[in-house]
């Protein structure tokens, strides 16, 4: 992976300067420490920049890169995993290559297929392509949203880059935090694409292409998560479908091992990363280095399961032991890289982990994100299924008891009285067909954190975030099975807007490490989306078909292990000892009032509660992390805008 940036003229009056394009590069050096380059169009209509993390064709793949006659240029962040096959095919069709890089297939595929070139790519990518003959710029992002691409439109220029901090040197003043974005973060855990935390700064949405031509910017969707009408699923026996799933996963993994540098893997000890490591071992007997996180907090630690798999598959392993103090110490840098407010500290240990990868001499890891969304793994999907079942007989006493089977990892002081669970999960039960049904309980709980919003902030909110989302759902959504609807919402909100960016790309790239995601190969997604939902969740057995596919390759304990979602300590990370100075400062009454997003008195009560050690509630933990990370974003990107620009330099 790498960093890309560029500036395009929106009118014929303006000329783009190389100096301006260069000014954006230093903020991307962590994404591409190995090399950098700039291309300036001879007519100065556009400048493209690149910082390189060399992974394929180490000597020859410098960017920005061009086609045969230098009329098509690209700056690209990512990998095209099927580049070997594409290259052969394009050469057969008369194209000449001057490098062995995967990047070069992009310019030739564009020459061959026009804007449809993207349909031929299997990979993860953020692409800026300039066609100088037609004077048009394409900005394209991969299907699932693995890699980032941000832009902002000024009166006469379009700026774009892999990270928001690279845009800052070209802004006349500090950006503003968007109230709408905060409202979305405190509902869905992330601002909804194309929004970012900041006003007037947007992202190219996953599966979208922006085309700039004659000063007009037009957007199209080339791919989206799609599910069949109910009943129109893959035909074939469970055994046949199991084999097909296994074969697609095996190939998705194999092509993601293509690199001119060593490739490692993340290993959490859960089913997904265990399966991934097993698939890698099936492909190659070469020694495999895996990387894991251990936690000081025993309830969150998965070391026992990690060890089982290390022994079973005979892989090497390095691990970090994450202590509460590590999270507190690293949190500001985590937010600086995430460039957004977040509600959990979970990204922070991921950044520590990529640091270990880097220190071990590795640039690339395979990782299991996406399996839950694609193959039906989350407890939220089980929860949604139970609630649908319960909705048929809302007065049933025993139907909701099924919910108790869901959360054995939750620490309780005793059995939860069913009435409390009932009342919580009953939310929306009267309307089981409403579009957001599956996610209402999570969005409701998260939204409770908005009690801390200041009057000022509340006065600036316009939309109801959930209503807005449901208005923007695709027309076919209502015809999908309820399980598929839940998957769609999860893929579009949590996966695309949060997990892949704040917890994924940003935490990897902070240490110049590339992550690769076999479960997000679009062939895996498209195949799995057409599976009958009962093959993803058979009764309450999650990822049923996936487990069938992997049952001969993994120890029974891993297959049968109850899902433990990855979590990191939140309030205890900051308050189990004396909180760091930055926490006391940014959560002080003075700073809270000055920045203006949160009610200083209410946050004061939350702090008192957190310091006393009596905060157990989810919402307290989310609220504290949400408030602190928002304050950090204001600190870095607004109050200290100019020093952040120079720091990036």
């Amino acid at each position, binding site marked *: 992976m790498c960093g890309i940036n560029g500036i395009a003229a929106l009118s014929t009056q303006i000329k783009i300067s190389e100096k301006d394009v260069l000014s954006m590069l230093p903020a991307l050096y962590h994404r591409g420490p190995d090399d950098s380059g700039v291309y300036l169009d001879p007519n100065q209509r556009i400048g493209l920049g690149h910082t390189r993390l060399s992974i394929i064709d180490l000597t020859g793949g410098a960017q920005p890169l061009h086609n045969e006659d230098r009329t098509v240029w690209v700056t690209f962040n990512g990998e095209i995993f099927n580049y070997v096959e594409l290259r052969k095919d394009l050469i057969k069709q008369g194209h000449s290559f001057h490098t062995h890089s995967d990047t070069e297939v992009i310019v030739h595929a564009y020459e061959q297929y026009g804007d449809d070139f993207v349909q031929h790519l299997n990979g993860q990518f953020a692409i800026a392509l300039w066609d100088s003959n037609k004077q048009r710029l394409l900005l394209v992002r991969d299907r699932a949203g693995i890699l980032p691409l941000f832009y902002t439109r000024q009166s006469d220029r379009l700026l774009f880059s892999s990270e928001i901090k690279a845009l800052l040197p070209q802004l006349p003043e500090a950006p503003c935090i968007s109230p709408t974005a905060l409202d979305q973060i405190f509902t869905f855990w992330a601002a909804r694409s194309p929004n970012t935390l900041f006003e007037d700064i947007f992202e190219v949405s996953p599966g979208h292409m922006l085309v700039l031509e004659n000063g007009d910017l037009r957007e199209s969707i080339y791919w989206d998560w799609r599910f069949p009408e109910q009943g129109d699923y893959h035909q074939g026996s469970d055994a046949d479908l199991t084999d097909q799933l296994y074969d697609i996963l095996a190939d998705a993994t194999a092509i993601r091992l293509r690199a001119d540098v060593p490739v490692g893997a993340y290993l959490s000890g859960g089913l997904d990363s265990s399966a991934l490591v097993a698939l890698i071992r099936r492909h190659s007997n070469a020694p495999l280095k895996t990387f894991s996180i251990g936690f000081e907090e025993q309830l969150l630690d998965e070391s026992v399961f990690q060890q089982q798999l290390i022994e079973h598959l005979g892989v090497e392993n390095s691990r970090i032991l994450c202590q509460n103090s590590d999270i507190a110490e690293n949190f500001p840098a985590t937010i600086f890289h995430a460039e957004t407010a977040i509600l959990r500290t979970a990204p922070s240990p991921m950044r520590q982990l990529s640091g270990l990868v880097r220190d071990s001499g590795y640039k690339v890891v395979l990782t299991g994100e996406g399996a839950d969304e694609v193959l039906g793994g989350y407890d939220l999907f089980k929860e949604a299924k139970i609630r649908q079942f319960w909705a048929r007989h809302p007065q049933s006493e025993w139907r909701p008891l099924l919910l108790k089977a869901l959360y054995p990892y939750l620490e*309780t*002081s*005793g*059995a*939860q*009285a069913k*009435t*409390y*669970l009932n*009342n*919580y999960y009953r939310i929306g039960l009267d309307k089981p067909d409403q579009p957001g049904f599956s996610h209402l309980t999570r969005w*409701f*709980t998260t939204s*409770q954190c908005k*009690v*801390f919003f200041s009057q000022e902030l509340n006065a600036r909110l316009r939309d109801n975030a959930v209503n807005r989302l449901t208005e923007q759902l695709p027309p076919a959504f209502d015809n999908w099975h309820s399980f598929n609807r839940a998957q769609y919402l999860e893929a579009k909100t949590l996966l695309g807007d949060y997990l892949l960016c704040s917890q994924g790309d940003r935490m990897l790239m902070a240490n110049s490490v590339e992550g690769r995601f076999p479960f997000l190969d679009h062939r895996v997604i498209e195949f799995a989306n057409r599976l009958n939902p009962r093959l993803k969740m058979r009764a309450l057995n999650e990822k049923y078909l996936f487990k069938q596919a992997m049952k001969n390759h993994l120890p029974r304990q891993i297959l049968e292990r109850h899902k433990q979602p990855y979590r990191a300590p939140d309030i205890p990370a900051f308050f189990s000892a004396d909180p760091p100075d930055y926490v006391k400062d940014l959560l002080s009454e003075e700073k809270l009032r000055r920045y203006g997003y949160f*009610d200083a*008195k*209410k*946050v004061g*009560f*939350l702090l*008192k*509660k957190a310091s006393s050690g*009596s*905060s*157990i*509630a*989810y*919402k307290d933990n989310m609220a504290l992390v949400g408030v602190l990370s928002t304050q950090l974003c204001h600190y870095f990107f607004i109050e200290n805008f100019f020093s952040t620009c120079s720091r990036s330099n």
Partner: protein
Amino acid sequence: MNMKKIIRHYIMENLLFTEDESVLQDSSSFLDGGIIDSTGVMEIILFIEETFGIKVDDNEMLPANLDSVDNLAAFVQRKQAQAVAA
């Protein structure tokens, strides 16, 4: 401070995060008001156990005992009376 006041004070500061007395009626349902979730219930139970020296049994974890200031106060009084009688 009398018991109800202690409970009110706790709910106001730890669940509503405010000193504004007008936001909480003694009879207001915490569940209906959306101010509590399944993990928040545990906090209330820990609070009354530690503050009033009682033990909440599993089968007592019911809205009738825990879901408003009035219900909490009545429940704690009953439990304390039972402990004295025993």
